[in-house]
């Protein structure tokens, strides 16, 4: 008992850590990481920082977008994290992303502890955000909102960790497209007119294997002493271009090939504007050739691993050379190499047959050769899959692995989903399997979504963990670090925080024939009418004693008798 408590608190405490920035400003950054599969990963990060207090009346916006500022002050938001993702991040092929996100739309918000009616604020906030981002966030209601107790702790400064002020929702069915990208780009101070954002051409960005755009607002320390806070807005966009569809199968990438644009200037408002290219696996240029060459090299500890980056500083005019444009070119020399397996990895699928019951399997891989570490698993299952929680089993290496902490909130039909949160210790070099059986509920005929035979989505499981790092993490917060390595705050040298999402599930529910209600009405009415008709007839028909008619022989006999004058037969 005490052990799991301390674990949770450690995680919570760790997440409440802080990072320090020197001034309030705007920074932009692009990281290009060649992936082992031959694909290429490009990650944009834009950070706007503002020393202000939104909760005081009048606001004068300079770099920070007004629409978001109004949202923060109106709904007393403390932290807001929203992501829109198209495609699934393939951890086994691509390694870890800088910022994870589940397929579809994800939104989690911490409200200030002054908010009295959190549910109402959440409802209005989702409606306003769906207007700002042109997304179907208005479909977030109590049936897909949960309050996780441990998985989503505030990432900014502050000491409120009461889950009453947290709301988390995922819409796995949400489809992300250009109409979501345009409002997102509009929030940047330079728009898409200057700086790195000129590369964001939607026809290229959405012609990719993975596209994820996110926005994170949180309070951060203004300086290293952390006496006052400022607001940080981070906008990130991650995209993976496919070797075959975007790269025509040639292992050669350039900015122009990826985005059909080149860079000509930095955003004049940015205090720092840099392009990083990951050259860790390529120290002598034996794997690929990078041109133009740059003398700047930066070392950073990212996701528990020391990485080396070539840096292009866009604020320096020399970067653009004589052509006044920068087109970073990567040309492969060697064939692909095996990637190291990621330390933590998750999978999920539905097992079973028929349309009555089924079983959800979640597999969590710990690929570390000798270290065991705990993970927090969060599952949100809609109410129409009725979980049999007594069938919950957690097994590692063939043995029962008892979770040290379970937080389960049962569903209520049409009101709230199942919430299952567990702290599981993963043994070294193991696969941990979590299974739970469920029954499929019958929905009311108006509750089916359009195209119900497609199936119903169940959002991704969230696995949060403190993973042992290969090299010592950089806990010195006073130092300026690249944006991509400074999002999750880091408190300990030996571990780093990681969150991964499993695949969303697509579950078939028993789907009726939708003309059925009318057929049923017709059939029952007919049956009732037939029954009623015979009853009515029986009750109202009048019965009379009819004179039995004489037989033909008798009548003939009577005629003959009349002719003969003999008395008739009766």
């Amino acid at each position, binding site marked *: 008992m005490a052990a799991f408590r301390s674990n949770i608190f450690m995680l919570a405490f760790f997440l409440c850590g802080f990072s320090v920035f020197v001034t309030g400003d705007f920074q932009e950054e692009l990281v290009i990481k060649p992936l082992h599969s031959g694909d290429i990963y490009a990650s944009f990060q834009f950070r706007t920082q503002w020393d202000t207090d939104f909760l005081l009346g*009048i606001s004068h*916006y300079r770099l920070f977008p007004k629409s978001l500022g109004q949202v923060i002050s109106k*709904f007393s938001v403390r932290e807001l994290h929203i992501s829109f993702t198209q495609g699934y991040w393939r951890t086994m092929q691509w390694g870890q992303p800088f910022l994870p996100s589940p397929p579809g739309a994800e939104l989690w918000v911490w409200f200030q502890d002054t908010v009295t009616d959190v549910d109402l604020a959440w409802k209005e906030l989702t409606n306003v955000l769906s207007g700002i981002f042109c997304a179907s966030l208005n479909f977030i209601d109590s049936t897909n909102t949960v309050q996780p107790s441990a998985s989503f702790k505030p990432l900014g400064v502050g000491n409120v960790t009461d889950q009453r002020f947290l709301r988390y929702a995922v819409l796995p069915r949400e489809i992300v497209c250009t109409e979501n990208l345009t409002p997102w780009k509009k929030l940047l101070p330079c728009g898409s007119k*200057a700086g790195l954002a000129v590369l964001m051409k939607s026809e290229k960005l959405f012609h990719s294997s993975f596209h994820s755009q996110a926005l994170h607002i949180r309070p951060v320390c203004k300086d290293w002493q952390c006496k006052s806070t400022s607001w940080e807005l981070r906008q990130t966009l991650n995209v993976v271009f496919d070797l075959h569809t975007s790269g025509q199968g040639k292992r050669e990438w350039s900015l122009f090939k990826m985005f059909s644009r080149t860079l000509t200037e930095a955003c004049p408002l940015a205090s720092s504007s840099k392009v990083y290219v990951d050259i860790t696996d390529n120290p002598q240029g034996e794997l690929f050739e990078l041109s133009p060459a740059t003398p700047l090299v930066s070392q950073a500890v990212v996701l528990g691993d020391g990485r080396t980056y070539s840096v292009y500083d866009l604020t320096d005019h020399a970067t653009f050379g004589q052509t006044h444009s920068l087109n970073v070119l990567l040309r492969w020399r060697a064939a692909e190499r095996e990637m190291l397996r990621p330390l933590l990895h998750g999978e999920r699928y539905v097992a079973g047959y028929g349309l009555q019951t089924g079983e959800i399997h979640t597999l969590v891989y710990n690929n570390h050769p000798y270290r065991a570490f705990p993970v927090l698993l969060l599952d949100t299952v809609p109410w129409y899959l009725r979980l049999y929680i007594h069938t919950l089993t957690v097994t590692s290496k063939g043995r029962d692995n008892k979770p040290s902490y379970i937080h389960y909130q049962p569903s209520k039909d049409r009101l709230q989903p199942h919430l299952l949160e567990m702290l599981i210790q993963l043994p070294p070099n193991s696969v941990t399997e979590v299974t739970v059986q469920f029954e499929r509920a019958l929905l009311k005929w108006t509750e089916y979504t359009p195209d119900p035979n497609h199936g119903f989505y169940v959002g991704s499981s969230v696995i949060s963990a403190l993973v042992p790092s290969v090299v010592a993490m950089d806990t010195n917060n006073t130092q300026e670090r690249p944006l991509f390595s400074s999002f999750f705050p880091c408190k300990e040298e030996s571990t780093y925080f990681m969150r991964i999402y499993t695949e969303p599930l697509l579950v078939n529910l028993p789907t009726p024939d939708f003309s059925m209600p009318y057929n049923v009405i017709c059939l029952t009415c007919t049956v009732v*009418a037939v029954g009623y008709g015979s009853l009515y007839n029986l*009750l109202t028909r009048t*019965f*009379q004693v009819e004179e039995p008619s004489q037989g033909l022989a008798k009548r003939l006999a009577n005629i003959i008798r009349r002719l003969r004058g003999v008395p008739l037969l009766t």
Partner: protein
Amino acid sequence: MVWAERHRGRLAALAIAAVVIAVGVPLWWKTTETYRAWLPVAQINELAQLQLQLSVEVEVVFSKGTLTAEHQKKIPPSNTRQEEHVVDETTRLRYRYETRYRTATIMEEDALNQSTAAEADISLHMLSESPSGSVVIYVVPESSTVLPEGVSVYVGQRRTALLRAGGQMRVAVALKEVLASLETWIKQVLQVMSFSHGDITAALSDRVRPGDRSREGLADSMRAFKSSPGYEITFSLLNPDPTSHLLHWDVEAAISSYIQPLLSKMAPVANFSIDSQILYYAVLGVNPRYDPTLNAYTLNADSLSHVINPVEARLGSSAASSNPVLNFLLYVPDSRHSPLHITDHRRHTVPSNAFSSPRWGGIMVYNVNASGTELPVDVHIDMRRVMGVFLPQLRLMLGVQSAAPPPGFLIGPCGNAGLADWELDRLMWTRSVENVATATTTITSLAQLLDQIGNIVINDNIAEQVSSAVASLQLAVGQLEVGNLGLAMQYSKEAILQSERAFFDPSLLHLLYFPDDQKFAIYIPLFLPMCVPILLSLLKMASEVRQRPGQGQAKKD
């Protein structure tokens, strides 16, 4: 025997018919009924016939030397004048002016002996404060030096006016004539200081079609925003070229020293929220034309209508509230299109270099001398100049009318707030009438809609909102009747809020819509086989009953 059997059958058919009528039909009715809460229809219909009475309290104070001693004894304590106007078949207006007469006190006499009218106005205000909506008129003798030469009426900062007694006053014998000659002046003063019939009918434009109103008045009323319980004011600085200009504007200080006093004065009319933003790479929708004679770029008045749309996409709508937004844009042209001037229809440059768009806001072009060698050039914007343009535009947008005073009138300076008390009163008169008009139209059209479409569910909360809106409306009308302007404004704001909330309630949209053909398709399989036998046997019985008296007669025959 046969007859008994027939009788039993008939009774059975009747009993089944009775059960169907007594139990089946009510059951069906009850289960398929839509819930409709009770609405105060009678009161709403009463409000549809709007009879507004506006009461103004006028106090006329005679100073020494304007009345003879004999007249002083005889002056009536008060006098009521009423005007009635029939605006259209459903709207009637009645103006009621209650005039009270008295002579000036000694302290007031002292105040009136000041050297200038402005000083007299201030010292008079120190003596007493009049409630909002009322007017105090001091009649000063013709020889008084308080008023400048040739000025008959001085309208002060507060709710007081100084009126020079006419020359005929000393000569006139009857007090009645004195008062009558004053009356024409008082009428004019009231038209300036509280309301004129034109203003009120303009405010009623929601209910009444604009008929023979003057073009100018129409333009004025079109320019101002519709009355709303709140406004969002946004100041945006557009910097199309951040590489060459680094703009600094101290908008915070400018707002607190120029805009905030006006808005806090107008707090009874509406809530205001202000913010400002800087937009980079925001360009106007029109390419300015180079004019070699001016050695500058020009934007003609004809092309101004195309300026706003591309900018508006960047402004960002107000996400957090549904109040109307007033936009004020300060545009600093980039160095390639600088200087930029706005020209009017006759191709003269506009001195303020600004224009306003009705019910939207204002745009000002601010040229800078970017002659620095090193880019970007630091530019500090002169906010005094900017606010000097935006403040009058804001006044116009908010509906503060600055109509030219009639001849012989002198309007005093309006003080720190940029708005005199009587100007606020004037605005409140029109706004409260406008609110009442809007709320009544909203409520009556909601009632009509609910009346026409029987399938709409009326929940209890809507009924409650409608009732409270009606109650607030009645209170507002009542307060206008007694001349309590502040309360009337407040109630009319509440009425408008509640009526809109009821009108736009999402639960009204959950319209239980069953098309009639579908309804029949569902009912026919059940109702047809059930009702046909019942009807047939009832018909048969009826025909038998009709035949039986005939049989009886035949037997008698």
